[in-house]
């Protein structure tokens, strides 16, 4: 076997599209057959039934889509503007970069399940909570894309600007802004489903109309057809928006939009690494406390539900209630970990494994890659009710949803990483007629590691989001359910404690993966460790 490199470039774009279309049709037929076989089990709606439901509920769905779409668009615009502003600050004032990205990460780790009800209380019954949640769901990924893009220029270009005595502002205007465009477009594409997801989660918290409201209602009424129809609508709209943004991007940008996996590892000399990490952590803590406490003071939030950092410290230390709330939180967290950790690991393993399989069987690669890219456009949490339908409200359903949430980004990142394998190194192995699996083990997997770890890091907040949402709307266990219950019963001590714990654990998990990554990459990809 000498030809193991998937070579999508040799397949024409049109040919690839036809193949993808064929695969989709085959999948639809298989779905129809399976659904017909297990009909009456209240699990799977056949495509034909979904189509009927779509037609029957066309008016209802359109109205809901307009409501959700409006919130999603508003959140998309606000979140991405915030991302552009934050990334520009980080580039113009490089000293602030580590702190800006770290604070942005912590805010991104805030569990939407808890921020949703809190925003509902603070902002009232309108669409403001949906908009804010949509903005919160998109800004981080766009900011990371942009930060990579704003640096994606060779130093020679900056020398030209500097040789005319111009500084950072000119470099931003003439070089960085334009060089980052493909990255911005890639970020915006990923932001589309995220905005939809944020808006729908916002609606779960008690909006009056919208796709999120209908999803909750259909799920409760065991209206299988409508549940599937809703997921279809959310998916189709996201995919269309994803494709449209890509098409608009191609009009302005000739470069191929890159696949952004995660922020570049922060640079620090070895001696200073610990000190600079501690310094950043300190700055982040101060900024968070200022934002938190300042937010309470500025908005004049009612002390009935507002909790200051000191309040939360007292709650978590058990100083006031003998630790009742803390113990409740910790036992809920243990339940959550039982879903989140296996789901996260399963998702990583399945994503990396599927990517390797695709590389070993190049015939499927041409079809899988576009399909996988398209699947990024699916707001995965909207499929939560479907997974619950299929696998029940128990542990398996929860673990599966987390795994699905982690699977897609990992799969795409690993596939991308495997493709990054240096051609010359592969040629050396091929010149000794090394079989495909040897090439995989010796060259491709090491080349894949940076992408794999980038996906693993970015999947931590995604897994937390998935597990809290599935606990909330399905399993009724763990911290997600506890937060939702606390919000509905005005248990603001519990809610505040849960938010702090979940956010802190997400950030710690992210940092822990980053630490493992550093150790592994030091061996396998030292060039990534600048």
């Amino acid at each position: 076997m000498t030809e193991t490199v998937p070579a999508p470039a040799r397949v024409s774009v049109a040919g690839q599209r036809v193949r993808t279309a064929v695969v989709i049709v085959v999948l639809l037929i298989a779905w129809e057959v399976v659904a017909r076989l297990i009909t009456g089990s209240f699990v799977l709606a056949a495509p034909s039934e979904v189509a009927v439901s779509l037609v029957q509920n066309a008016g209802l769905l359109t109205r809901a889509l307009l409501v959700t779409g409006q919130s999603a668009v508003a959140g998309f615009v606000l979140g991405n503007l915030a991302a552009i502003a934050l990334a520009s600050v980080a580039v113009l004032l490089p000293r602030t970069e580590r702190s800006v990205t770290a604070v942005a990460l912590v805010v991104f780790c805030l569990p939407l399940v808890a921020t949703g009800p809190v925003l509902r209380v603070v902002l009232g019954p309108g669409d403001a909570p949906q908009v804010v949640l949509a903005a919160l769901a998109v800004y981080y990924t766009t900011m990371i894309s942009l930060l990579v893009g704003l640096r994606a220029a060779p130093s020679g270009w900056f020398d030209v600007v500097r040789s005319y005595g111009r500084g950072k502002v000119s470099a931003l205007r003439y070089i960085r802004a334009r060089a980052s465009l493909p990255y911005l477009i890639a970020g915006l594409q990923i932001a589309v489903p995220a905005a939809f997801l944020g808006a729908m989660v916002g609606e779960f918290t008690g909006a009056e109309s919208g796709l999120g409201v209908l999803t909750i209602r259909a799920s409760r009424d065991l209206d299988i057809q409508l549940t599937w129809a809703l997921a279809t609508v959310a998916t189709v709209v996201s995919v269309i928006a994803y494709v449209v943004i890509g098409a608009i991007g191609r009009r302005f940008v000739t470069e191929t939009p890159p696949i952004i996996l995660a922020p570049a590892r922060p640079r620090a000399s070895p001696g200073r690494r610990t000190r600079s990490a501690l310094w950043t952590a300190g700055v982040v803590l101060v900024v968070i406390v200022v934002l938190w406490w300042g937010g309470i003071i500025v908005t004049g939030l009612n002390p009935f539900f507002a909790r200051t950092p000191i309040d939360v410290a007292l709650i978590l230390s058990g100083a006031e209630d003998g630790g009742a709330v803390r113990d409740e939180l910790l036992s809920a967290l243990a339940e959550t970990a039982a879903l989140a950790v296996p789901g996260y690991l399963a998702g990583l393993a399945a994503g990396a494994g599927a990517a390797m399989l695709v590389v070993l069987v190049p015939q499927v690669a041409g079809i899988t890659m576009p399909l996988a890219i398209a699947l990024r456009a699916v707001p995965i949490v909207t499929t939560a009710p479907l997974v619950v339908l299929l696998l029940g409200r128990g542990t398996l359903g929860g673990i599966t949803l987390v795994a699905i949430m982690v699977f897609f980004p990992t799969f795409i990142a690993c596939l991308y990483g495997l493709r990054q394998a240096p051609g010359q190194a592969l040629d050396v192995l091929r010149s000794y007629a090394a079989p495909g699996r040897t090439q995989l083990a010796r060259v491709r997997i090491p080349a894949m590691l940076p992408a794999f770890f980038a996906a693993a890091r970015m999947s931590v907040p995604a897994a937390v989001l998935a597990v809290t949402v599935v606990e909330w709307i399905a399993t009724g266990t763990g911290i997600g359910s506890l937060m939702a219950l606390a919000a509905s019963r005005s248990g603001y001590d519990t809610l505040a404690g849960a938010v702090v714990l979940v956010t802190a654990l997400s950030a710690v998990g992210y940092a822990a993966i980053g630490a493992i990554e550093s150790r592994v990459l030091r061996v396998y990809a030292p060039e990534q460790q600048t």
Partner: protein
Amino acid sequence: MAADAGTDGGGVVDPGRAPAVEISGVTKVFPGGLEAIAPLTLTLEPGRTTALVGPSGCGKSTLLRLIAGLDEPTDGSLLIAGAAPAAVAERGQLAVAFQDPSLLPWRTVRGNIALPLSLTRAPIDAEAIDHLITLVGLDGFGHVRPAALSGGMRQRAAIARALVTRPRLLLLDEPFGAVDELTRQDLVAELPPLWRQRGTTTVLVTHSIAEAARIADRIIVFSPRPARIVADVAVDLPHPRTPTVSRSTAFLSVIDRVTDALARSRGNDHASRP
């Protein structure tokens, strides 16, 4: 990095006159201890073309970056007409043609050549740009993006970009490295008269001794790293240096002297090793 704000204007090059470059006791040691330039003292006369010749990696390009104000010397002083390089750069009075053309891929050839005018907030002179495009032999490629050009064509566009602001000090780092031989001969014949007529002080880094002898008024030969001057050869030949001139005994004697100096510097280097 310099800020975008203007300077106090002190010590700025008189736009009507070419500047001298005064280098005294300049050294450059990179972080990690790599010594690129040993203490170097050198004056480049205004309006003249000086070629810097030396083995690969000897520090010529580093010196050029110091003159351009892109890097700071570790020690010593470097003044352009009495002013710091950064101040001269801020006035748009110097220009560099880099070894790597560094064209912006989203701008056309014309857009890339116009970039320095935007950077220095000068009006875009379409006619001057057309003239430069013709001069570097890129007629008909003005609207083309760099990706569609050959390496040599990109380098020529970069040279045109360096000339567009009519700099008083022109720094050329291997400007013809990727250009094919015939085009190179054309450029060597046509470009130097342009900057000589404008009275530009020019510094040319090159590997080609013949090119240095064709273009320069003075050739400075450097030792292997850290760069020290091993020879300073005046090229007292009339301009333009036509093929007839370049077959003259005087021309060949310049080539010989530079070649000898280079060989000596390498020999000395070997001899000095234990």
